[in-house]
């Protein structure tokens, strides 16, 4: 339903909806435990549906998650759902960052371990590990992350492009960096992260 409605929602600026829900503001929702994941999933659906109506054009919504000590985020539109990570079936001889495949409601979905994809050491799956499920050109793929944090709104004007000298073949996936409180958040391009560069096929 979200998708269908998003198509019919007027562009930001033309939509003036005084009867709409009051702006919730960038108040973060903390997430831990299964309830929170569900609340998170609900908020994903709601957020994905609302941005044009409630957010100024310059604000974009991102899903923030942790990998080790660092914070990362991907655009909320890219995330279909977040599921617990268990029974990932390994695919022998698959490219190094591919964790394997999972079954989700009758579909077999490949899962990319984001740690391996961006050059961090792999960690074992824990109760906090999540798979973010994304649709990409008709394919459905999963992204293994350490744990979900929250949904954040980021003013596009505050996104800083990564300096050219840190851009390598492996870091093409970095859209930019923004601040969240006193911490930095790395903003990732989902399509780029879900494409395996030749250099990472065997490590």
């Amino acid at each position, binding site marked *: *339903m979200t998708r269908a409605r998003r198509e019919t929602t007027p562009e930001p600026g033309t939509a003036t909806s005084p009867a709409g829900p009051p702006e919730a503001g960038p108040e973060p929702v903390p997430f831990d435990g299964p309830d929170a994941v569900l609340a998170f999933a609900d908020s994903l659906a709601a957020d994905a549906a609302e941005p044009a109506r409630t957010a100024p054009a310059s604000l974009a919504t991102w899903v923030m998650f942790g990998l080790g000590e660092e914070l990362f985020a991907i655009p909320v539109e890219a995330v279909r759902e977040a599921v617990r990570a268990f029974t990932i079936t*390994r695919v022998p001889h698959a490219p190094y960052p591919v964790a394997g495949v999972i079954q989700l409601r009758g579909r077999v979905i490949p899962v990319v371990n984001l740690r391996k994809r961006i050059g961090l050491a792999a960690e074992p799956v824990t109760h906090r590990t999540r798979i973010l499920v994304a649709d990409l050109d008709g394919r459905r793929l999963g992204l293994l992350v350490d744990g979900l944090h929250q949904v954040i709104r980021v003013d596009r004007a505050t996104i800083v492009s990564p300096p050219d000298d840190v851009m390598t073949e492996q870091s093409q996936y970095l859209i930019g960096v923004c601040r969240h409180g006193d911490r930095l958040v790395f903003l990732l391009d989902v399509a780029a992260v879900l494409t395996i560069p030749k250099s990472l096929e065997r490590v």
Partner: protein
Amino acid sequence: MTGNPYESLLGEFLMDARERLERVEDALLAVEARSGGWGPELEQVRRDLHTVKGNAGMMGLTALQQLLHAMEDALQTPETRDNIAALLGELDRARATLPGSGDAGPGAPADGGQLPAGAGRSAVDSVRVPFTALDAIIEQVAEAVIARNRLRTLLEAVRAIRAGSVPPAEQWRTLVDQVREAHQGLDATLEGLQDRILGLRMVPLRTVLSSLRRIVSDEARAAEKSVRFDTTGGDTPLDKALLDVASEALGHLVRNAVIHGLETPAVRRAAGKPPDGRLRVTATSDGESVRLEVADDGRGIERGALLDEARRRGLDLTTIRDPFDLLFMAGFSTRHGADLSAGRGIGLAAVHEAVMRQGGWIDVHSVVGEGTRFTLQVPLSVSITRALLLHADGEDYALPLSAVVDSQRFRRGDGHGIHGGWVWRWRDQVIPLTDLGCRCETATTLRQDGYAVVIEYGRKHRALVVDRLRGILEIVVRGLDPITGRPEGFGGTTILGDGRAILILDPRTLVDAAPAPGAAA
């Protein structure tokens, strides 16, 4: 199988009667939906009822004859003519008297059959085949016969060679080319034949969609709800076997949508929605699979409430990946929460299983207060294979049974290391041996003890050593996304009964594969 002329006549009668009574039902439902009374369809309905009545008399089905006569009478007077619910009821009773009417209609009693189940099935499980399609098949069979004759001629040439002298190299080459050509021709012909026959199994979805209209109408009346029901994509063709699965699944989904998803007009008005609930079934096809969507603009499903129910039942929440998965769990329903998907339990679990069994998938999207959309996808035709389930180093693999020629207990001493690989004496041959764990990067050396499974592809053999054989099962072949690199040795994936995705081994590339590193110890 229908040597008895009465039986074949009965089959034809049943097919015709079902079609006509279905058309009558469609017309009744259309009149009901329009709420403007009867239109031009009245004449057609009368004609259909009259024809079936006449044929029923000829077949000696007097009960049916009388019921249809009563319906014709009811259509004469305006008061009884406009009581659509009563007419639908009579139609159901008429259909229930059809021999073998187990599946005569959604509203019909299931035990309406008067003949042994087998007698009715011949008609129920049949498809209509146009003559042109049969002609095309006969033409292709003729092509296959020509190709066979050609191969026979070539075989004669080979026999002549064996009997006499070795022919010059040039002649050999021509012969080989001719055999190859004949083989390719036969291949193409058989493939075309297969396509055509599979095509005959294709039935348009329309029949299913019109039976849904009936379900919606009945349920809405019973629940005092007002529903605007639309369907699109009735022309989409589907394999007959899958049509039955889709029909069952869609029936459950629309019934649930009317009973649990859509609100009563009063509740809808209070929520600022139009009083008529919207329910839409959409079918689309991309040439390989059919996608069916059932979307309502009802109250939606709350994930939090699903979780509450799971907690109330003492389910281990840490094993739940996504609360919507709970919807598809057998026996899970949230009957106590009126604002929920009460009663969705059993039905949805069955739907999920049926769809999965046919190689399809099901998905749900719901926004609280705005509605729910179920999407289910089934392949246009099924590709089910039998496979041997192998177990090595804690992992399961499916090996297509067609490639398996033997399996035996194996001890490490049975294998012989030569040229950096292993070989094994099997029957009167020496064949290469691969430890499946080594091949799949879970082991580094040949295991001490286990089973050797001999596979054959293109007259070549190889033995695969595994820990255990876990039995034979039917699997539905699914693809492997290109991001995995589609490594050699694996032909796809499949889903086991316990929900795990596992890899299907590809005998073709396994037979040829060079010994995996580490196989020689």
